[in-house]
């Protein structure tokens, strides 16, 4: 009887210590990126990606779903609730398991992201607080949650597995992303070559702001054709101003472009890179990339 009471007392203190450790370490730095400390709450507040953009050249790939990271505020909230319930000898149900899963998921995200960004020994960059959070999360699940040993192991594993798997899927998606085929892309603007040149020559800054990185269909009379040895064809639209438009059509379209000659009226579609002054030509080129002949 005495040993059972003693064991319950010990268990209660362990639960309180684990929950308190989880709560406190959440607000401490977990990882070092260069000279920047990234705390456990940084992902929930949005600071995580602000620091990563500044220090690691990595911004949030999906800013529209940043609100989902607010769920990690449940870690300190649940830890506080568990402390209260433990101190008042009340049942805690699934709360310790949920807090532990969220905590281990968050740690996994930090480790995975740091490894992706820095490709170095991540464990050296993790702080004592990160290790404390990990130990507290595992301890909370083991000493506080209900269920048998296998069930508790399941709770410990599920968070990191889900977080790591999701991270890898997102990483693969981002690294595998390519530009949409220009032929299939919806044009942002359709303009005559003379009008496009007119806009740039009258207000270069405004035109760059408006057209840079936009898909534009340009129609006009070809002024010059340059055929390269690798079958790439460059088409130019030149007028009386010191501006000209320069499209480079890939060699895969050589069969369509090889017969184009100066004086032909054509439609070309591409991604506008904006204007750039050339000292060699004393002219300004309006360059396009990923260009293709456009069927009207």
């Amino acid at each position: 009887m005495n040993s059972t009471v003693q064991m319950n007392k010990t268990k209660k203190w362990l639960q309180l210590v684990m929950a308190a450790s989880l709560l406190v370490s959440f607000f401490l730095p977990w990882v070092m990126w260069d000279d920047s400390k990234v705390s456990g709450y940084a992902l929930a507040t949005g600071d995580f990606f602000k620091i990563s953009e500044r220090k690691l050249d990595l911004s949030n790939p999906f800013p529209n779903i940043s609100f989902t990271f607010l769920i990690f505020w449940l870690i300190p909230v649940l830890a506080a609730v568990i402390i209260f319930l433990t101190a008042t000898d009340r049942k805690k149900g699934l709360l310790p398991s949920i807090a532990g899963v969220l905590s281990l998921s968050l740690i996994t995200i930090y480790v995975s992201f740091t490894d992706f960004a820095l490709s170095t020994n991540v464990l050296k960059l993790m702080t004592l607080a990160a290790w404390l959070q990990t130990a507290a999360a595992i301890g909370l699940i083991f000493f506080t949650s209900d269920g048998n040993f296998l069930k508790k192991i399941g709770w410990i594993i599920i968070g990191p597995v889900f977080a790591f798997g999701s991270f890898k899927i997102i990483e693969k998606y981002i690294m595998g992303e390519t530009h949409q085929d220009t032929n299939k892309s919806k044009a942002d603007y359709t303009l005559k070559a003379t009008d496009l040149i007119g806009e740039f020559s009258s207000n270069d800054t405004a035109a760059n702001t408006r057209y840079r990185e936009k898909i534009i269909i340009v129609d006009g009379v070809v002024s010059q054709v340059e055929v390269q040895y690798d079958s790439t064809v460059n088409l130019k639209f030149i007028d009386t101003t010191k501006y000209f438009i320069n499209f480079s059509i890939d060699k895969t379209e050589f069969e369509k472009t090889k017969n184009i000659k100066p004086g032909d009226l054509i439609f070309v579609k591409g991604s506008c890179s904006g204007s750039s002054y050339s000292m060699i030509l004393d002219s300004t080129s309006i360059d396009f990339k990923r260009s293709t002949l456009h069927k009207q």
Partner: protein
Amino acid sequence: MKKTILAFVLFFAVSVLYAQKKTTTSATVAFDATTPKDALPKAENKTVIGFVDIKTGDVAFEAAVKNFSFSNPKVQEHFNNASWMNSDQFPKFTFIGKIEKVNKIKFTKDGTYDAKVKGMLTVKGVSKPFKAEGLVTVLAGKINVVANFNIKLADYAISGQSIEAGKVSREPKVTVTAQF
């Protein structure tokens, strides 16, 4: 700065008046900064402006930074942003130099000739002396130029975590091709 631009403009304007001076607006500059950890940092610009004076050996190239095309949109965005090439502030890569011993290249006779070029390469506002070797091929009145070389990013004050993490090569391979 205005005097420098004026000097260049006069130099090239006078040059182009003569047939010995040739220009192109379809030269290609490709760079490959891939590593075993990342196959994405490579790009190509096919609207590079080139100039050559076959008499004096003067040569020049200008490549608009924003017209380098990457396969991955995110990498393209990073390449142009302020912490990398900062293309808003430094819109061009330029090279101005001279072909050494240009009289050894017979520009009017079909053939392939080794060439060495020396000059100043400017990347992200930093100008450094630069030399490279290439091949000049003359065929049916056209002059084709190919040069392959490496550049050290650190020489042009280009650094970042991606380089430190081994995801971007410290010395990307560059290939320049032009047909005059």
